[in-house]
């Protein structure tokens, strides 16, 4: 769940992931996408924190020739095993959300696996623990009961065939009282 109302665009989630996995400079699994001014009136003041959407019908799992991407039964995490990767670029090319990242240094694809080993150890993913405003949370889609939760908020591409699992809460904009000039 990406709560863009609470999100302050601080990039802690993005850096927490790098702190955990030490990806090469240039390889970023979780990043912030500023919401365009056509959807949110103030430039660089609202964001969607995005990584892998752990889709219901993940295209990466479908196209990978060596089954390096596998969707887990028990929790739906799409786990990537980078050591299996043969760098065919299929997932990198096919994922419309750009979740599969091209690591040109190690010559393989890489992707957020929702910190699967942290989850298995009973811990929160690095980005979830690392969010100072608690804007990122893990939710169970089977029991999620929040009328404000959306699958395709404005500015997030719709790919119904994939059925992404990420849910969003929209940001709010303030009422304004603006002095015209500073002088």
């Amino acid at each position: 769940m990406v709560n863009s109302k609470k999100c302050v665009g601080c990039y802690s989630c993005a850096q927490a992931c790098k702190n955990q996995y030490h990806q090469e400079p240039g390889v970023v699994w979780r990043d912030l996408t500023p919401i365009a001014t056509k959807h949110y009136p103030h430039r660089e003041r609202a964001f969607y924190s995005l990584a892998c959407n752990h889709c219901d019908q993940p295209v990466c799992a479908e196209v990978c020739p060596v089954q390096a991407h596998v969707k887990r039964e028990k929790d739906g995490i799409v786990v990537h095993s980078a050591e299996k990767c043969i760098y065919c670029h299929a997932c990198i090319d096919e994922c419309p959300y750009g979740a599969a990242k091209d690591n040109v240094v190690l010559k393989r694809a890489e992707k957020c696996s929702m910190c699967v080993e942290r989850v298995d150890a009973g811990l929160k993913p690095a980005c979830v623990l690392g969010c100072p405003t608690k804007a990122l949370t893990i939710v169970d889609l089977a029991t999620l009961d929040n009328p404000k939760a959306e699958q395709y908020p404005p500015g997030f591409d719709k790919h119904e065939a994939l059925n992404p699992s990420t849910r969003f809460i929209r940001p709010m904009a303030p009422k304004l009282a603006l002095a015209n000039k500073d002088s």
Partner: protein
Amino acid sequence: MKKELKKNANTAVCPFSRRGFLKGMVATGVLASIPAGILRANAWERIHYEGKYDIFRNACPRNCYDTCSIKSYVRNGVLDFIEGAQESTFTDGALCVKGYAYPRRVYSPDRIKYPMKQVGRGTGNWKRISWDEALTEISEKILEIKKKDGSLLGMALDKYSGNFGITHYGVEGMMSSLGYTSRFVGTPCWPAGIDAQNFDMGNMWCNDPEDFVKAKYIIVWGGNPAWNSVHTMKFIYEAQERGAKLVVIDPLLTQTAAKADLYVRVKTSQDGVLALGMARHIVDKKLYNKEFVEKYSKGFVDFVSYLKEKVSVEWAAEQSGVPAELIRQLAEEYAKAEPGTIWAGYGLQRHMNGGANVRAIDALAAMTGNIGKEGGGVRYGHLQTWGFNYNAMVQKQPEGSVGYLGKDKIKSEFTEEQEGKAKYSDRTININKIAESILNIDEPPIRLLWVACKNPFGQDFDRPKLLKAFKKLEMVVVVDQFFNETVQNADIVLPSTTLFEEYTVNVSYWHYWLSINEKAIPEQYEARSDLQIAAMLSTKMNELESGSCTFPQIMDTKVWMEKEFNEGIYKYFGIKSWQDLRSGPKKAKLASSASWHEKKFATPSGKYEFSSDLAADYGHTKLPEYKVRRKAYDKFRVLTPHTQFGLHSQFVNIDYMEDFNKEPFVYINPLAAKVKNIADGDMVKVFNKVGNVTVKAKLTDNVAEDVILMYEAWFRKADFNVQNLVDDESSDMGSYKTGAPGVAIHDQFADIVKA
């Protein structure tokens, strides 16, 4: 959403297992000393929780409200990853974009590893030297100065807040242990507001920020916690969920403003005017708290007279840019809230009338009875938790030292006044006028400058003047981690340790938690802590001239850390020894989350002083009167607040950070850009009487039509420094508590042209 990808025809099967390779390295114990490059390329693996990590407790020593408690995961002497400590309800498991870059910072390829000497200052011709060579060269210079001038007043220290680990006050101690020296005193940061709060209440003392949840009306005034105190936001959100209204008053539409119920754009530096306008309305409607003003304050009657004579809501509206109707509405909502709270940010006091702005805001809170209330108050900062021994700082000058014959006192907002009981003292200079001082001070001039925990070329004002001033210096020694701009202008750089490589203890000037900082990994390469450097310098000095330095030659930072604790700290935090902090940070045992809860103010009258004689002693008005703001000296106001990606010149240079923050920008209003024929993405030149900056433009109405915005930061690959546009004009207040006035950092102006 999807980024453009290049088609790559190469496919390759990876020839060997990285996991196997890494395991082999672990087995031979080589891991700790392998170059960062290899570690980086093979670092991505699943985290193996089986086969435990060594856990250490650390604390971020940066100048930041949040001072996070950190939990560090080390394996085989290598820092693998960190988390925010979950024991602290303030840190609550999360750090920030800067804190999470620490593991990369420790092993950054461009970290300074050895003492280095620049052959020809500013040439970039650096060569590695040994510690012995470095310390010998420095010691010989110190002895030469002593011989030439008969004193060490020609040696100066420029230090501020690059590292707030309490033991780092050992750098001041190192200076004292050598003799009487020149000290840059004051603070570029928050002195005007400190003086203001001291005139009004006798101390700077804010509520526990965790009690924001109890507020019913919140004004975040001239501050941007969504960037600069991210951990406080959750408490503000909770207050909003409980029905509180959040109002943000700021010349910029900041990230915090975007989270408000109402954002009010005020004309820069007219916050005092706005507050006085609100106060006038509160008086008119008799919405002030009678009990508080009658029992606990002095001078309210005089304040009311002033308001009735000199302040009208209409006048305040015209001066502040906030409509009269809204001033009345804000005043009534704030006065009626039980309680209302105000966060007075540091931005609003970085002005020629900055202290006056804070006094007016304090007055608002006092007259409405919001001081001393849980969930209320005017929140600026506090030093309640800083009662350590400052053992490393207090050192004796060597026998026979000659110093300054004036009556200078070393003032600092963080430590007790150090008064020289001897007839000599150190020579104090305004830290905010370093360029001016170096150029003009004589008898003796400043010959040797020691810089630690500071980056004057990064943060100090009138950069062109500073470059000129440095030419006068005979030797510049800098203790640092990266080849930043000050290091580029130094003769010798000494590599400093990160927080993970030493013991110290940390507290915050905002929250009430205490954290131990353990040595999690060995000193990397030849890096040494400020304290160790002092000890090593002492050894070398005494080798060359017996008795020339009294600094204890203790290299174990754990010993220094232990010496800081005292009964007061133990009692305040309810601990028996520093060992109790190894299981996690501890919070002070507060009688109330509210500061001033007993309403016993530390002023001469013991009351809140609307009318302060002390303020008058320092050349200000007794009452929190309107003070005119600085007249514009050019067409656009230039605002240079902090970037969210760094703490001044720290972090922005880390390659992980560059993934999220590649280059600097200047933010211009579209109306202004149109007139200047500037499109989004164009390079523009920002120029004024001080200097100029060329940078890429972004258009946004987050800024007013005649304001331009740039974030102060050091980009290692860009020629960008906002200090080329900032002069060293002083703020009104700061001398009382910190020894020097502050700087009118946000009272700068410039013009722009397409480059």
